């Protein structure tokens, strides 16, 4: 199995384990302003994803991410299925050429773009976007401007997401089911922003534990395209 593919499988397994641990916490948050199914949905969906990617034969990172997204789409109920799963399916294409500094930024930005487009949510609507926007912007800046290694950039993104989650508490929800509550949503931490943070924290811990070396370019894992033969003669 490719080292990068194996690392992504481990990350998915770790996320599944973390969300199982946080099942009650997420459900409590969701029962205050939603329908109390976020904890169960996320735990079940990621457990199914971990099982499915564990059975892949020597997968590349893009395949692991895409398989995870597809499994979440069919296994996670509610809006989290298309938001988490659908967005991963599209963002996975950014990793087709392998994992490098450029492709991980492309992945993060495409994922954010899909989540925002799907839910039509902006920062301040009390949704997962409140955690995701600062996280992705921090990640991109840390790599592109500050020239940090992706592992450190991810750790900074987690800090940004944590501040974003805290920021959802005083907000009034204007997207998603909580928006039906109007002012009663004020004072509650958003479950989707919280699960986004849990996932990012787990990814950062996994990257640190595995001490993954993300290359500047993905030459080693890029498919070699043979030169086209001239068949017109």
């Amino acid at each position: 199995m490719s080292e990068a593919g194996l690392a992504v499988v481990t990350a998915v397994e770790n996320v599944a384990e973390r969300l199982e641990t946080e099942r009650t916490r997420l459900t409590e948050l969701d029962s205050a302003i939603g329908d109390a199914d976020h904890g169960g949905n996320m735990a079940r969906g990621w457990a199914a994803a971990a099982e499915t990617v564990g059975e892949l034969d020597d997968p590349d990172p893009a395949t692991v991410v895409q398989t995870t997204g597809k499994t979440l789409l069919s296994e996670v109920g509610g809006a989290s299925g298309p938001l988490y799963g659908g967005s991963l399916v599209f963002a996975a294409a950014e990793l087709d050429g392998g994992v490098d500094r450029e492709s991980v930024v492309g992945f993060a930005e495409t994922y954010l773009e899909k989540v925002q487009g799907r839910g039509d949510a902006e920062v301040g609507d009390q949704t997962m976007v409140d955690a995701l926007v600062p996280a992705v912007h921090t990640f991109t800046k840390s790599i592109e401007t500050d020239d940090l290694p992706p592992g450190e950039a991810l750790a900074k993104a987690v800090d940004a997401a944590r501040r974003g989650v805290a920021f959802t508490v005083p907000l009034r929800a204007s997207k998603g089911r909580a928006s039906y509550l109007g002012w009663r949503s004020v004072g509650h931490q958003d479950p989707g922003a919280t699960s986004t943070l849990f996932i990012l924290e787990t990814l950062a811990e996994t990257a640190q534990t595995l001490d993954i070396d993300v290359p500047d370019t993905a030459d080693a894992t890029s498919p070699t395209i043979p030169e086209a033969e001239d068949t017109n003669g």
Partner: protein
Amino acid sequence: MMIGVVVVSHSKRAAEGIVEVAAEMGGDTPVEAAGGDGQSGIGTVPDDIEAALAAADDGDGVVVLVDLGSAVMNTEVVIETGDTEAVIADGPVLEGAVNAAVAATSPTATLESVREQAEAARAVDKL
């Protein structure tokens, strides 16, 4: 060939009931329902939506009426990743489905004309 109509609701019974009303008005128009979480609960499942789109597609495409939240998002994902040409009509799900099923019976119906008629249901006054 005809434009098809699909109704996606969080409730299987709501989707089927709306299809029942629309099909009554829509003559030969293929009208299909997708709804529920697949375990007799409330929700929507992308695979079910994809199957309904395929069943309603006669080769000219499908106009989809949706209820709320994840029904909209799951339908969008299925359209973007799937094989059936389909568009979501942004209108009330029952009135829009009836309008769409009727509009699809026109010999000059297109995906766009059927969607327009479904969306025109937003302006229907009842009193």
